[in-house]
Structures are given as C-alpha cells and as structure tokens.
C-alpha cells in the first residue's frame, strides 16, 4: 500500500488550484447525446463483437459524453463550474444510497451460496439480463455483491474515521492546548505509531482478531489516529493564539470550557473536511487487507475480497476483477476529488497558502 494518510494530505497542502482560464467550448455539447448513444451501442446492440471493441466503445462514449456534459454545464453555470467534482459527488451519493438501501432492493442472490447451487457461475455482464454485472465463480450476483461491498466498505472506513476523529481529535487538541510534557509524550506516541509500516501493522492486527466490520474499523482507525492527532494539534496551535480564545481565557473560562466551547467547534471543521481523503485511504487499506486474505472472508462480499477471488483466473474472466475494481476506483477517485474541494474550502491553513 503506498497511499497513507499523511501522504495524501501533504499532496493537498501543496496544491494550488488555478481557476480554469479556458472554458470548454459550447459547441462540444452534442458529444453528450453522441456519447450516450455510443455507450448504448457498445453495451446492448453489438452483442457479437469482441469484448475489447465493446469496452473501447463504452470508454470512448464516456469520455465524449463527459466533454459534452462539461460544455453544457459550463454554459449554464459559468466557467468555474467543476463538472467532475459534481459528478464525483453524485457518485458518492449513489454509493451511499446503495449501501443504505441494498438490504431492501430486489437483487439476485449475492451472499448465500446455498441459494445458487443450480445457477451458472461466471456469467458475463449483460446489462439487460437478470445479472447486469454478471455472476462470480459461485454464481452469486456481482451487482448485489458490489452494493453489499459498498455497505461493508463504508461502514468500516467511516467507522474508522469516526473513531480516529474522536480519539485523535481530542488527544491532538489537548496536546496543542496544554503543550509541555503531555504534548511531547503524545508526539512520541504518534511518531511510534507512524514508524510502523502501515500495511504490515494492519496484517498483524488482522490476524489477532477475528475479522468483522467492527474489528476492522477499530484496526483501521489506528492508521488515522496519529494523523488526526497531528492535524488537530496543528489547528489548535493556530486557533489558540486567536483573539476569541484569548478573550475567553481572560474572562476566566476554565480549560475544559475553552477546549469544548471555543477550540473544538473551530478545529472540527477542517478535520472533518479531511475525512473524505482519509476515508479514501481507508477504503483502499481495507481492500488491501481483503486482497491479502486477512480481511473479511467471502462469500460475505467486499470489494477487496471480490477482486481477490476474481484474480484467480481473470485472464479468461476479466469482469470478475474489473467490475468491483472499477467501482472501487470510482469511489476512491470521487472521495479524493470531493475531499480536495472540501479541504480547500474549510481548512484555514490551506487558505493561508
């Protein structure tokens, strides 16, 4: 795993976004309907050409359609409109909705092998069939698997982020506020945690506990805590010198009051704005663990274990890897994209650059 939390953040801090000077020319808008038509042809009409050509058509349709949409949106909302960020947002909403509603949707069996014994395994994706995204080696529905996987991934990574925010945030604020030996102690602890190679630490943790969503969330939060400690501490340091904090102190407010009433609301916003990026990292970390075979075990679907099971023979059945792979990629991409926007907007340190 090469993505770690502090890495993504370092990247964000350095980013200086230049507003796009050249808007997309409006005459590109016909690409949108053309793109949609090409996707339609690629997925539904051409059933007897090779998969490569169909995939190429769909990709071309997506790119073309995006340009068309971008042209339309920039015409409507001005040239600073960020179409890809909005699309990312929509994707996240879609993933979130499917994670919430999956239990009630009329999906084909995607978890219990005992209900698929007579069915055909490894069906190819076919959008207008019973199994739009195909079936896996156990004849389980991949669409359902991907949606259940979204639920698992989100529960785990959001849970880990929440734990990290809470613990890391409180420790970090306290360290930044009190300074002194407590601060150094916390610093040393955070440094020690960061010194471990993250994936190896996770694999070791994963072999200690039986894996379910909650234990995984707990383990993954270890990855986020030191980062959040540093973040909260740094933000606290900037706020602790600001007038309103000094004023509260001089009016005789106790430490607890200053921390909870004055500092926490202000530090919380930038920290939460980082949550998107951290979530993206944790989704990848969770999938990496599943990929190494120490995460949640199949047939309980997660994106990582679907990819792991699929790679066994993805030479002949690429959809087993690529369908969950693409969904995961798009989710991580969307989180990074939206997270970047959020941080630009809400992190005070970012604004100073």
């Amino acid at each position, binding site marked *: *795993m090469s993505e770690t939390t502090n*890495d993504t953040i370092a990247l964000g801090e350095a980013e200086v976004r230049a507003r796009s000077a050249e808007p997309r020319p409006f005459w590109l808008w016909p690409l949108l309907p053309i793109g949609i038509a090409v996707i339609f042809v690629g997925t539904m009409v051409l059933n007897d050409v090779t998969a490569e050509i169909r995939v190429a058509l769909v990709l071309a349709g997506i790119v073309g359609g995006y340009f068309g949409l971008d042209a339309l949106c920039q015409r409507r909302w001005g040239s600073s409109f960020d179409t890809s960020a909005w699309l990312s947002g929509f994707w996240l909403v879609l993933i979130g909705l499917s994670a919430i509603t999956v239990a009630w949707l009329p999906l084909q069996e995607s978890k219990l092998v005992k209900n698929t014994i007579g069915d055909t395994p490894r069906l190819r994706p076919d959008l207008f069939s019973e199994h739009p995204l195909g079936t896996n080696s156990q004849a389980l529905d991949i669409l359902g698997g991907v949606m259940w996987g979204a639920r698992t991934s989100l529960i785990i990574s959001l849970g880990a982020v929440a734990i990290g925010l809470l613990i890391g945030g409180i420790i970090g604020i306290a360290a930044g506020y009190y300074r002194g030996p407590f601060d150094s102690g916390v610093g040393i602890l955070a440094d*020690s945690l960061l010194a471990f190679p993250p994936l*190896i630490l996770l694999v070791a943790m994963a072999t200690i506990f039986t894996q379910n969503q909650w234990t995984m969330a707990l383990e993954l939060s270890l990855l986020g805590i030191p980062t959040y400690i540093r973040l909260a501490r*740094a933000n606290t340091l900037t706020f602790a010198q600001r007038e309103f904090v000094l004023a509260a102190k001089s009016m005789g407010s106790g430490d607890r009051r200053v921390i909870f009433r004055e500092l926490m609301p202000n530090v919380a916003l930038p920290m939460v704005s980082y949550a998107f990026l951290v979530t993206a990292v944790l989704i990848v970390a969770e999938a*990496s663990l599943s990929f190494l075979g120490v995460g949640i075990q199949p047939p309980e679907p997660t994106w990582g274990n679907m990819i792991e099971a699929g790679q066994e023979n993805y030479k002949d059945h690429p959809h087993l890897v690529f369908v969950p792979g693409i969904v995961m990629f798009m989710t991580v991409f969307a989180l990074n*994209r939206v997270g970047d926007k959020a941080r630009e907007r809400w992190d005070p340190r970012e604004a100073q650059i």
Partner: protein
Amino acid sequence: MLRVIGLKLVRLVPVLFLVSLATFFLVDLIPGDPAANMLGTDATIEDLEAVRKSLGLDKPITDRYVDWLSGALSGDLGLSLRSPNEPVTDLIQRSVGPTLRLSAMALGMSFTIAIFLGVWSAQAAGTRVDRLVSGTMFGFISVPTFLAGLLFIFFFVFRESIPRWLWVIGMGLIVLRLLYLAISRLVEDRAHFSGWFGYAIATLVVAGLMMWVFVQWPDFPRTASHRYDDNWREQIRSLFLPALALALSEIAVFTRLLRADMLSTLQEQFVLSARAKGMPTWRILFRDALRPSSFSLITVAGITLGRLIGGTVIIETIFGLDGLGKLIVGTGVIPKNYTIVQGGVLVLAVGYVMLNAIIDISYQYLDPRIRRGRV
C-alpha cells in the same frame, strides 16, 4: 543548531523503544502455534512436542523480550523458526535487495515522469493541458496499488497487443500533430528557419521512437522472481511492471507537489527578469526554476523511499518477488514465524524513523525559512 539536532536525536530513543516493545508484544498476540509452522501435514503429535520444546517457547515473555532486545542491540535478531533456522539478519539482508531495487526503480520512474508533468503543467497552468494532467493525477492516486498491479499484468502480459497498439495510436497522433505544425510553420514563415525545422526533426524523432518501441516491445514477465542475475536489462524488464504499479500514485504526489512549487517560483523576481531578458522557456524552466522548486520534492522523495520499502508487500506478492514485505508478511506474520516479524518490523521502523530524522535535520539545516516559520 547542534542543540536542535541533539534534541531530535534524543527524541528518537523513546520512539524506538516504544516501537520495539509494541512489535514484540503485538507479534506475541498473533494466535497460532509457531511449532505447526515447522511441520508438514504428515506430522504426528510426538513430532510437535519435540519441536515445541526445541523452540524454547516455555520461557516467560518478559525474559524473551529482554533477551531479544539485547540481541537486537548487538545486531543479532535471533533465528528463523522455520527450517533451516537461518539467522533473521541474513534473511533480511537477502530480501532487502529486491525491495530496494524495486523501490528505487519506482522512485526513479515517478521522479522522471513527475518532473515533466509537473513542469509542463506549471508553465501551462490553467490551460487544457494543465487540467488534463491534474485530472489524470487524480486518477493515478485513486488506483489502489494492487489493482494497478493486476491491471498491468492483464494488459501487458495477458493482452499485450492492446498497450502495444495504444502506444502506436497515441504516438501516431502526436506525430501527426507535429507534422501539421511543421508544415503550417513552413507555409507561414519560411524565413524563420528554426521554426519549421525544429518541428520536422521532432516529427522524425518521435516517429522513429514510435516504431522502435513498437518493434522492440518486450515480453514483460508475469512474475519477477528469478531475474536477479547480473543482467541489468533483464532486471529492468522484469521489474518494470511492479515498479510502474508502485510509481503510479507517487507520480501523482510528486507532480502536484512540483507543479505547486513551480507556480510560486515562476512568480519570483529572478524568473520574471530572466523572461524579460528573453531567455528560452526551457532554459528558464529547467535551469532557473526547477532547482529552487524541487526542494520539497526531494524531501518527499526521501520519505517516500522509506515508506515504499515497507509498503511493497502486495506488489511483491502479486509479482512473486522475494522481498522484505513478502518475507515479513508471507513467511513471518501469517505462519507466526515471529522472530522474522519482530526483526523485520524493527529494521523497517528504525530505518524509517532514522530517515525521517535525517531529512528533518537537513531540512532545518538547509532551509532557514522553515526554521523560522515553523510553529
């Protein structure tokens, strides 16, 4: 200055102590019987008892920790529990080579590509090229490493004609574009010899490269396991895909970092005056602006190298490379061969902490702005 460095070094001691303590006890918590690791499926209960006794697992854990730590301080990390019980230091030494080569290659690749993309998109800030690059970088950083590895194997090994033809099509478009530019310059402005001539040369060179790479397209191996001979070409060929998979997200990190730094450097007085003097753009970018801009890039690259060495487990597993990550996870954590885990993690953690300290110190030393500016 010395005081600052001294303080930093003193701070390392508790960090390293905590790391060693955590490693030792964490590993001890891993369930499973290390003795089982020594046996095969034909073992009997009597074999097992004999092995258990020979591992000395009956001593209390605190004694074992003290033994281990004093050994580690003198460079002895104990013996592997797996037959033939080699010293852990030997195992680490042997597997650190492949990992180092892989990480260095990944770093080199990401550096080279990032310098171009970063400089290019900085000088073209706000244009379509810039947007394309930054969008692509978002894509790169969002591909999990293991997915990148599988993707590259699929396309470069299983469907190798696809990247090969994509290369031809992509490069062909560039050639056509250059050709068009050359011809239009020639038609517009015959007097300015260099204008069209440069494009003509570029067209030829790019077309030649396109053909050469197409013809010489190598067979990338599915696994990289047995190519560690003295043949550097073979090594590069077999490490190309795993290194590229690792490099993907680093390219994105470096490019964005460099672009941001370049953007601010390009606003500085000396760059502006150089431009005013009519210096060629490439000279300004690479001679004048790149050097001051690459300061933080180099820092990040140092940290990245440290991180890569501990983070190649998955790529090593996918590509069958016997490196440090695979040693620690595959023959250490999973079969509970805990001397390997303890030794391996300790070495990685110490290396990482030391590297960070060195970078931190040199940062303090080299860049006075940081020293003053830090909270």
